[in-house]
């Protein structure tokens, strides 16, 4: 399980606004086949921007100023994602790398049915596929994520938040991609529902073997599901290690601080809580750490 599927090398992304925002700075990352790579970091550290950069979805004023993204196809060889254009890029998207976005609530087109949106993917990428087969595939996809295929003819507003997110995941699976990028797919959901969906993702990953880049700022969640975790700070990856190592032996001060921000639910009540912090402390940097295990 250590063959790379996606390699990012020295990726930098800027927003060409005044002042220029250097959202991603020289990030290098290798995603291995079939692994779940967690990308953690605070709001605004550049997670989404980086994910968009991986799939060439950046829109003006964002510019990929330098770096290389290479996709190592299971069959065929390497693809320089940054050099793709036009039809080649369109063919690459979703087929090789699919995405589930932050706020799936708004990722579905409100005026066309779920079926039509899944169909869109199939007709675009599998032009020869007969109608009946497409219908069958759509139903199968919904079943995979635990949604009643009867919902295929529903519109987004007729689905609950959790269902919408599942539909999005189903759609992301439609072409059996090798990589799935999930940008905070569960933030807006209830913990219980979130749990179910995560479980679904994990199952599907086990079944289909795609690699996942899972983006969230919920570190405990990442610790539970990821194989490896990258911690991002101000556009840079400051630490990248297995989940275990990140939790047990965080190297970077920032990683430590992030961890401290999540008191353990079942563990000992952290000493810093309710006692440690003087009322005047404006940040958590000076919070004294006692064991959180």
């Amino acid at each position, binding site marked *: 399980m250590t063959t790379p599927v996606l390699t990012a090398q020295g990726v930098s992304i800027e927003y060409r606004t005044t002042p220029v925002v250097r959202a991603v700075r020289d990030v290098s990352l290798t995603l291995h086949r079939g692994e779940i790579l967690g990308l953690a970091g605070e709001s605004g550290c550049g997670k989404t921007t980086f994910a968009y950069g991986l799939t060439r979805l950046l829109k003006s004023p964002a510019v990929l100023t330098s770096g290389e993204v290479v996709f190592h196809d299971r069959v065929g060889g390497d693809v320089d994602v940054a050099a793709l254009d036009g039809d080649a890029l369109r063919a690459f998207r979703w087929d090789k790398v699919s995405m589930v976005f932050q706020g799936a609530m708004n990722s579905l087109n409100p005026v066309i049915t779920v079926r039509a949106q899944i169909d869109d993917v199939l007709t675009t990428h599998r032009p020869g596929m007969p109608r009946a087969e497409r219908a069958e595939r759509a139903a199968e996809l919904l079943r995979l994520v635990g949604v009643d295929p009867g919902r295929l003819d529903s519109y987004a507003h007729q689905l609950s938040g959790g269902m919408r997110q599942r539909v999005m995941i189903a759609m992301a699976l439609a072409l059996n991609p090798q990589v799935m990028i999930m940008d905070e797919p569960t933030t807006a959901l209830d913990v219980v529902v979130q749990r179910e969906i995560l479980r679904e993702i994990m*199952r599907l990953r086990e079944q289909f073997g795609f690699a996942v880049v899972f983006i969230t700022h919920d570190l*405990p969640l990442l610790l539970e599901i990821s194989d490896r975790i990258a911690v991002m700070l101000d556009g840079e990856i400051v630490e990248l290690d297995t989940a275990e190592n990140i939790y047990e032996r965080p190297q970077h001060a920032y990683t430590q601080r992030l961890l401290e921000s999540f*008191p353990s*639910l079942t563990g000992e009540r952290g000493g810093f809580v309710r006692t440690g912090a003087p009322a005047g402390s404006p940040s958590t940097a000076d919070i004294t750490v006692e064991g959180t295990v």
Partner: protein
Amino acid sequence: MGTLEVRNLVKDFRVGHGFRRSRLRAVDDVSFTLEAGKTVALVGESGSGKSTVARTLARLETPTSGEILLDGRPVSGSRTAMRAYRHDVQMVFQDPFASLNPFHTVAHHLERPLELHGVARGRGAVAEQVAGLLERVSLTPADVYAAKRPHEMSGGQRQRVAIARALAPGARFLVADEPVSMLDVSIRLGVLNLLACLQREENLGVLYITHDLATARHFSDEILVMYRGQVVERGPSDQVILDPQHAYTKTLLAAAPDPARHGRLRDEVRAELAGERA
């Protein structure tokens, strides 16, 4: 010492239009007591009625039935009674971006409650009080922060202003509806600690609403678990978290991510699949 007591609170909402009007019971027979110097946490999934309880306590909603007693006395609906009540009970909102008026300075947000509740009169006194409040929530130098507008501050700073505002009338009870869920992870604890600290120092009674079970456990003395408008379980925080009785509390706990249990979900799924295959 004081108490803020909720007795058999019921809140119905009308939903729908015209003929299809129906009632939705958002809060169903909820009772609890908030004591000075104590923190009660209200947890539960989305839509379980937590915010409705909070809003009813803040008198933003009128209860369908049930009572609210301040220091054992029912609160009447008259204007003066309301003002007196608001003097004692204040609220901190969830979204630090929405809870401050983008048009006004920090000073304005703090001056108004001071003036309204007659805490301070006269320019000088008010300014002094404002500075004092800002210092209490660690926004120093106070005069710099007083002149800022919300968009010039980070989420955590805004939430501190919101807390200061709640404290301004000299409130004894604070209703905090998910006060940190919109904040960046790294500053959440800072704000929570500030709240806890104030609570301790000023002997506040705090109703802490959250769906983060971990902080609920660590920051409160008592936890109430709400499910579909009802309180399904209550008890001292450690007891509820470590030894849940109600099935729903158990589900909730099982769903909550816990750094201490890293890799759990992955392993569970693998085990499951292996079981299926077998």
